[in-house]
Every structure is written in C-alpha cells, then in structure tokens.
C-alpha cells in the first residue's frame, strides 16, 4: 500500500496538464478546456482520497522528489518533496473537492453564459488548483513559498479575468500588491529559517532534521542554531512573525484584508475557489503546517490570536451594511478566517483545522449559491434589487440557507460545531494562565452576533419578501451544472460537523470526535498531541474550567449560540416582511464609516500614493539630477577632451616630431628618476 504514495505528485500534475491542454488546445475542445479540467480535478480528488486512506492506515509519507541545490560544497539542500500526513491529505481532499465542484459549476456560470476567453479561464483555473495542491503537499518551507507565490499569481490572473473592464484589472493589481507586501516578510522569513536551521523541512516520517524540531531542541539547549545574537525564543518569535506576514497577506487578515472585497471583481466561481479552498486558505494552512514552530512562541501565538479575533469582529461589522451579495460574503470570509487564526493562536489546533474544513464547504456553497443567484439576476449583484427568489429557485434557496445557517453558527449545522470549538478552546486557555487571550475571545464572541445578523440580512433580502425588480420577478433559470454542486455542498454544509462533535462526545462519552483523533495520530512531531505538549510545556498554555469541564463547554456553546440567534433574530425582525426597508440610516455617522470600511483603503492608498510615490519621486530626482548628471558630465567631458586631443593633431609635421620627442623624453626622464639611472 505504501507504493501508492508514488502517485502523489500526480495530484498536482494532473491539473497542471489540464492547464497546458486548456492553454494550447482549449479553443479546439468542445467545452473549451472545461472537460479536461473536470477530468483532472476528478483524478486529483480520487488520488487525494486514496492518500487520505493510505495515511489513515498508518502510512504517513515523506519523500524528496528533486534536489536542485545540494551536494558537498553547499551548507543546505534545496529540494522539492512531498509530505503526506493527516493535515496535508485532509487539505488535499478539501482543495480537490472544491476545485472539482467549481469546475463543474463553471460549465454553468461561464460556458452557458457565453463568456469569452474560456480556454484562458480554464487554463488559469487548472494552474491555480495545481499551485494550491503543490503548496499543500510541500515538505519544506521554500517549496511552500514558491507555490504560495504561484497561487498569488494565479489569483491575480483570475481576478483580472475580465481585463477589458475597468474594475477587474485594478482589483487584480491590488490583490497582487497587497499580498506581495506580506510576502516580502515571508521571503525574509524563509531566508531566516535557512540561515538559522540550515533546513526548511516541516518534518514527517523519516525526516531527521526539521526546523520546528531543531527549534524545540534549541530551546532546551540540546541543539545549537544560529540565532544572530538574539535569545533563541526571541529570535524564533521574530522568524515566526516574519512568516506570519505572508500568512496575513494571503488570508486577508487586518490590515492586509483590503484586497479581498475588491477581488469580487473576478468571476464568481473563482471567488468560491479563492475564498473556500485556495488563496485565502493557504495562509492559515501554513500556520497549521508549521504549528510546531509557532507553539514554541507564546508571543507569536498571542499576536495570531489577537489579529484573528480583531479581524473576525472588524470584518463582521463591515459586512453588516453591504448592498452587494458578494461583498457580504467577502467580509464574512475575512471574518471567518479571523476565527481560524484565533483558534490557532488560542491553542486550538484541532479547532482551527476543523473550522478551516467546515468553512471551506459552506463558503464554497455560499459563493456558488450567490453565483446561481447572479446568473438568475443577469449579473446584478445588488441585494436591494432582489427579493422573493425563494419560490423561483428552491434548490439554490435551500442550499444557500444550509450554508447560511452554518455560517451563522446555528445548531446543528457544521459551522456551529467548529465555531463553538474555536471559542471554547480560546476561552479555556484564556482562563488558564493566558489572560490576554480573553480579549481576543471577547472580540470573537461579539463577532458571532454580527455574523448572525449579516447572514440573515443577506438571506432575507435575497430570497424573501416581494421581488423588488423586474429581473427578480422573472429570473433566468439555472441548470444541473449549477444545481448539482450546490446540492452536494448544501448537504455537506449541514452535516460536515459530524467529523468532530466534541461537545456530544463529551456529554455521551462516545468517541465521535473523529477529527480530533485523526489529527492527534499524525507522524511524530507533526501531530496534535505533540503540539499540545509544546503549548503546555513551552508556551505555557493551560486549560482551566471554572465550572467544571462539561458545564464550561455547555455554557460556552450556549453563549455563542445565543448570540448567533440574537443576531439572526434582529435581522429577521428588521428585514422581515414583503417590503423590507433600509435601516442603515439609523447608524448615523457610523454608517459612513462602515460603508467606507473604516477608511482602511484610504490610508493604504495614502501609503501608496502619498508616501511611496513621493519617496519614488525623490529617488527619481536624485537619479535624474545627480546620477544622470554625473553620467552626462562624463560624456560631455569625454567629448570635450576628445575635441582638445583632436587639436593636438595640428597637421604640421614638425609639431609631431617635437611632441614625439617630448613624449619619449618625458618617459625616459620619469623612468630614469624612478629607477635611479642618474645616481
């Protein structure tokens, strides 16, 4: 069975082949490359499931595929390799599943709508999936970084897919530049990891030296690494935070979140892919991937938790006032990834991965649902022009409702279980010896209320009440290619929570927290159990249960459910009925602030235009006046000297004879003096 892992590279190679096929032969194919993509993703999905099974039977796997720098003379090896463990195979399944469904959905969204440039679309989609899958099974940080960048590139291409319009190219550039800003830090971090540990391997079965492990040994004084004069713990925190820069850019965490709402300019299936499984997920996945490293630094964890909690709340408040359905979803994505970060920072590794999983499902569902609505609405995204779509498109409605309930965190939908666990883990660790976490927890908790509110506002405005426009009264029908993926995801969103029903397990004593057991049985150094030891032993995280374990858990669940219901209830109260009205005016001055997204864009634009452009202009002035000045001076000096030299050539031969003799004499005298001939 172990040999099956030899096929693992094909998981990323298949979509890459579909990229090539769509790129070079797409226009000759019946569906312009869609079928190649679907086949490739189907293959990847099957292979991913096989890998999952292989790992489940105890065959976690790591192998180096290609060493491109190495040998005796260089201190490190730079390699491409594959790491298949519990975390990466789970993620492979998620990514290939979502990508497969997005490909199918695209048949309905792109092909049936007669969009142009389809081969390009499917080529980019294939490359996007291939990059993400490569990123997921990367066995070292450098390879991860390379695929991370490819993911960034593909999202740039896809967001700017309709490059002839005004918005998409600008949004694509913004996404590229903002994430690139974070990636600078990531790149420095990768170099720092190499300089410090001499290896960037994540670990895995058979890997003797991995950087999280070396860091752990170094803290215990059992290994010496180059920490550049810092105390090891300080230095590891610095390195961790550098890498975190890339994570925050990709996962759209405050203050790098501004690119994500603009990224809605891309085709909606792409948005689904970006938000659920690829681009944005890459960031938090990286934290989970090298969790053994972050667990060594309580400071880095606290930063992660705070950034996560703050982002969760901050983005949720902005989602409250948006008019476009995709904008609401965009802010919800930022907010939900905030939760995942909160979980990882708060010591809930399993909770974080759990929420990553459920979120991937329900967010893909919501986006595809939104895509279906957008098809029906002839590409009008304004929710105030919708209404009453429930009767016209029941499949979409029920699937969307399932996703919304999950997003809002209403029991028993999947989102409830994962979000509850996130908050619970943060709470108990906060109540332990880490009171700082309680602040992050409070923000996360408050965000639950807003999440419930904006989710149900969206559902009510879109599907309930009377139609508020002609297109809403007579929507465009959608076909199976759209409904199929929605149905699959709708069902999953409702039930995906069963993979980790921790509260139920706690109450009944039955071992049904499958994800927990799954992640706790990873390869040595890469499993939840090890992380928990590190959190306790090194980072000083302890769990505390002031009401006893069961009661604390129930109380926590009750509070978050209560807040979610309260938010949802408020939304229902405000926007119920056939003719809902806007209530945003009641917010007064706050409304303007929220509509302007807390002026985040403004200051970033100022950073780009006011500061960077000015510095660039100053540099340009220096270049033009001083550097060019020197160059021009040299050239005019050359021409001037040349002109003088020309005049020496007088044309009078006796002058030449004199100069010749003079030159020779000069040479003779100089050497005579120097060599002492005349002494």
């Amino acid at each position: 069975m172990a040999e099956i892992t030899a096929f693992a590279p094909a998981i990323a190679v298949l979509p890459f082949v579909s990229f090539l096929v769509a790129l070079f032969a797409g226009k000759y194919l019946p569906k312009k490359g869609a079928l190649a993509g679907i086949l490739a993703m189907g293959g990847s999905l099957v292979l991913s499931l096989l890998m999952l099974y292989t790992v489940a039977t105890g065959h976690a796997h790591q192998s180096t595929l290609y060493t491109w720098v190495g040998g005796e003379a260089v201190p490190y090896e730079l390699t491409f390799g594959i790491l298949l463990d519990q975390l990466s195979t789970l993620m492979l399944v998620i990514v290939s599943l979502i990508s497969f469904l997005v490909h199918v959905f695209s048949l309905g969204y792109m092909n049936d709508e007669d969009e142009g440039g389809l081969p390009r679309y499917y080529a980019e989609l294939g490359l996007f999936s291939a990059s993400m899958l490569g990123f997921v099974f990367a066995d070292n940080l450098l390879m991860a970084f390379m695929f991370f960048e490819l993911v960034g590139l593909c999202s740039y291409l896809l967001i700017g897919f309709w490059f002839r319009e005004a918005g998409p190219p600008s949004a694509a550039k913004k996404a590229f530049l903002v994430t690139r800003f974070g990636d600078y830090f990531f790149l420095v971090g990768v170099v720092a990891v190499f300089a410090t540990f001499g290896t960037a391997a994540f670990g895995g079965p058979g890997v003797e030296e991995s950087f999280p492990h070396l860091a752990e040994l170094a803290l215990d004084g059992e290994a010496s690494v180059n920490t550049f004069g810092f105390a090891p713990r300080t230095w590891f925190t610095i390195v961790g935070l550098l890498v975190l820069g890339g994570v925050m850019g990709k996962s759209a965490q405050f203050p790098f979140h501004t690119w994500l709402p603009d990224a809605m300019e891309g085709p909606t299936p792409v948005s689904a892919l970006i938000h659920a499984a690829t681009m944005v997920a890459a960031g938090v996945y990286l934290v989970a991937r090298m969790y053994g490293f972050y667990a060594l630094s309580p400071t880095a964890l606290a930063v992660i938790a705070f950034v996560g909690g703050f982002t969760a709340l901050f983005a949720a408040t902005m989602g409250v006032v948006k008019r476009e359905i995709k904008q609401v979803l965009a802010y919800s994505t930022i907010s939900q990834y905030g939760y995942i970060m909160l979980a990882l920072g708060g010591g809930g590794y399993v909770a974080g991965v759990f929420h990553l999983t459920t979120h991937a499902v329900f967010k893909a569902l919501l986006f595809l649902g939104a895509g279906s609505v957008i098809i029906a609405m002839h590409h009008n995204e304004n929710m105030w022009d919708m209404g009453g779509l429930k009767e016209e498109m029941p499949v979409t409605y029920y699937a969307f409702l399932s996703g919304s309930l999950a997003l809002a965190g209403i029991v028993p939908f999947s989102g409830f279980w994962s979000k509850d666990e996130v908050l619970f883990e943060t709470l108990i660790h906060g109540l332990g010896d880490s009171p700082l976490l309680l602040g992050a927890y409070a923000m996360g908790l408050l965000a639950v209320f807003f999440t419930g509110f904006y989710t149900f506002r969206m559902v009510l405005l879109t599907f309930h009440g009377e139609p508020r426009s002609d297109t809403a009264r007579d929507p465009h029908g959608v076909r199976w290619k759209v409904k199929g993926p929605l149905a699959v995801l709708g069902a999953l969103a409702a039930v995906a929570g069963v993979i980790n029903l921790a509260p139920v397990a706690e109450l009944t004593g039955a071992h049904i927290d499958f994800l927990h057991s799954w992640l706790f049985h990873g390869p040595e150094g890469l499993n939840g159990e090890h992380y928990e030891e590190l959190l306790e032993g090194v980072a000083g995280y302890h769990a505390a249960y002031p009401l006893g374990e069961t009661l604390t858990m129930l109380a926590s669940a009750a509070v978050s459910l209560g807040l979610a219901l309260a938010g949802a209830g408020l939304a229902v109260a405000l926007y119920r009925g056939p003719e809902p009205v806007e209530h945003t005016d009641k917010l007064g001055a706050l409304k303007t602030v929220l509509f302007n997204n807390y002026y985040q864009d403004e200051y970033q634009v100022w950073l780009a235009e006011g500061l960077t452009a000015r510095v660039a202009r100053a540099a340009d002035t220096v270049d033009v006046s001083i550097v060019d000045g020197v160059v021009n001076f040299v050239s005019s000096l050359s021409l001037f000297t040349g002109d003088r030299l020309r005049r020496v050539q007088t044309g009078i031969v006796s002058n030449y004879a004199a100069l010749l003799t003079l030159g020779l004499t000069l040479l003779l005298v100089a050497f005579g003096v120097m060599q002492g001939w005349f002494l």
Partner: protein
Amino acid sequence: MITPEWAAAAPTLVLGVTALVLFAFDSIDPESSNNPVLAGIAVVGSLAAMGVSVAYLVAGVGDPAVELYGGQLVVDGMALFFQVIFTSVTALVALASYDYLEDMRHQAEYYILLLLAATGMSLMAAAGSLAVGFVALELASLPSYGLVAFLKQNRGSAEAGLKYFLIGALSSAVFAYGISLVYAVSGSLLIDAVAGSVRNAGQPGVLGVGVLMVLGGFAFKTASVPFHFWAPEAYEGAPAPISAFLSSASKAAGFALAFRVMTVAFPIEGVVGAVDWVLAVQVLAVVTMTLGNFAAATQENVKRMLAYSSVGHAGYVLIGLAALTGTGDGGLVLGAGMIHLLVYGFMNTGAFLFIALAEYWGVGRTFADYNGLARRAPLACVAMTVFMFSLAGLPVGGGFVSKYYLFAGAVNAGVWWLALVGAVNSALSLFYYSRVVKAMWIEEPAEGVDVSSYPSTLYAAVITAAVVTVVLLPALGLFSGFAFDAAAAVLF
C-alpha cells in the same frame, strides 16, 4: 621539424618570390594595364603564403622552434600565427584593390610594394636578432611610405606619405639608437643572447634608455602614443585599401616584433632592476586606449574615426604585454593579444575596405554622407554593421571573444584596473561605432549619391571579411589554443 630547414621560412619566401614575379611581369610589360593578372598574382601569392603558414601551424612545424642562419631567423608558433594574419590581410587588400585601382597608372608598382611590405612584416615576425628585426621593419616601412603616397596627384595622399616617412625616419633613428645601446650593454644582437647578458647587467641606465627606445620603435610601428601622430593622417590620406593594410597588418607586425623582443630579450624578472618596461607599457596602454577612443569620439570623418579607433585598439593589444607582471598566466594574456590582432585583421580590414567601397561610389567622407546607405547597398551595410559592433566588442563577431580574453587575462594577472580602463574605453567606443550604424540604417538618405555599380572583388573582400569575423566568434574556441600555446612557448 622540417627538412630542409630553410623551408620553414616558406611563407616569407613565397611572399618575396611573388613580389619578384610581379617585378618580372612589370619588366616585360611596363605600364601594363592588365589589372586582372597583376591582382591575380598578388592574391594567389598571398593566399599561397597563407596556406603554407596555416599548414605549418596545424602541422606543428614551429614546435619546437626552427632556428635558421645561426638564430637570425626563428620560425615558431608565434611567427606562423602572425604570418597567417599578414597574409590573409594582404590577400583581402589585394583582392579589393582590383576594383579600387581601376583605370589608375602604376598598378604593378602598387602590388609589388604591397607584397614587399608583406614580406618585411613576415620577416619581422620571425626575426631572431635585433638587426634582422630592424632591417625587416625598414623593409615593411619603406614600401608603406610609397603606398600611402600612391595617389600622387592627390595632395592629401602625397602629404600623408611624406609625413609618414618623416615620422618613420625619426622613429627608426630612435629604434636604431636603442638597439645600439642594448648592444653596448649585452654585446650581442641575437635576442636569445641578449636575454642571457642583460640579467643584472652592469650599466642599468644605458640598458634602460636602450630598452625604452626600442619600445619607442615598436610604438611607432603599432601606432601607439606618443609615436602615433603619423597614423590618423596616413590612414586618411592613403588609398583606403592601404589604410586597411597599414592599420591591420602593419600594426600586427609591430606587435609581432615587440612581443618577441620584449618577452625574450628583456625578460621582466631579469631587467626589472634596470627598467620596469611592463610599467612603461602599462602607461602606454592606458594613454593609447584613452587617447585613441576619446579622439575617435569627436571625429566627423568616418575614415579618420577609424584611424583613431585603430590607435585605441593598439592600446588594447598592449595589454598583452602590460599584463606580463609575473603573476597569473602570461601565456593567456599574450595569446589574447595575438588573437585580438587576428580578429582585428579581419574586422578592421573589412571596415576600411567598406570605406574603399564608399570612396569608389563617391560617397562623401563624413558620418552624414553615409545616411541611408543601407537602402542602396544593404549587403555591404550588414557587413559594416558587423565590423562596427565587433570592433566595439559586442558578441556579433570575434571581437567580443578576443576582448574578453584580453580583459580576463589582465584581471588574472592582477592588473584589473587595466581591464577596467579597457572596458570603459570599449563602452565609449560603442558610441562612435554605432554612429556609423545609425547613419546607415536609421537616417534618411541624402540626395544625389548614385550607387549604380557593385564592384565585385571589393564586395567579395568585404563580405569575406565579415563572414570570417562572424565565424571567428564560435571558431575562436577551436583556434585560440594555437595562440595560447604559441605565446606560452615564447614566454618559457
């Protein structure tokens, strides 16, 4: 080895005999206007000499060196290598002259002088004693004076010839005086024998003055500062094929003699106490490069620009001597100098022959007169573009590789600043070389120039030079071994 031994001097003999054959033809049929026969004899003779020297080089006749007449002549790899340069340039020039001399008088004399000068150069490369070197240098120089003044009715040509002669006489005097001083110290004129007795010789002042004056003689022949004054005027006034001949072959001959005498007769580690001639050459190299290129940059006349660029290239080749500091691989840098002269023999000859073509057409002499020439003669202009870029050191021709070898050799010998000056000068040279290209290809053509005829042999010579220049870029990888081995054999 070769038997009989005198056969080793065959390239020189073939050239000399060709000159005599032309002489005989001229005696039988004086004032002949049978141009094809004259040009044909000259071309065949020089090609035969080239064939012999290439065959010798490949067959390894010069390894070990063949000494003739008690060491008065030395035929080794370096001599043969230089003879290949001289003979190929002579062949190209003789070929091009067929059209250039159309309807002119005294054609037989022209070819005789050309072949005699080539014989002198060939002897210079093989000179084993200072006396032979001096006589050979005069044998090369005297016909050259006559050739420069060949256009007797043209004031510029006559004046240039006279100036060249006067400066040449002065330089020869300096050179002869230098030889006599060296003889005074060493008691011998044979280069090998001189080497033996100059080590820690008694009168360092006398030796030092002698060595520097000998160096002055070489500087004249190679058109290096401060003995370069004749060059711009002679090149400008002479018939263009003769300019090509002088600036390529004659310069190479000067270097051939200089390389042998300086490295063999005055090994630097032996005479450094008396005179650090490597330092002197370094000074000359820097001054020559800089002056040549700077002066070239301000010229308006294309032929004069090429004349100054030729001075600049003498400066590059001087690096071959200037980098013999004792550190690094001397054979590498000396061989690089030889290779540059080989490439230069084609690219510079080609450039001057293009000028000859322009003169044949009656196109003016300035850059502006070349405007739009590419539309009328695209093939020749492609060739000229190759010459210009190869001279500047861009990788379209062998000039790139040879310059690279030179600069690399300089860095290898620890005189990186010499390479730096060379590189800066190369960058400057790109400016004025590309002016020609720009004028030919980009500028609007001037009115009134009629390119109606396409002189076949002149064209053939230009195209051959261009093809060889391009082919040398990859071929130098194969060829350069001969130069490096020959240089190393001379040094050790």
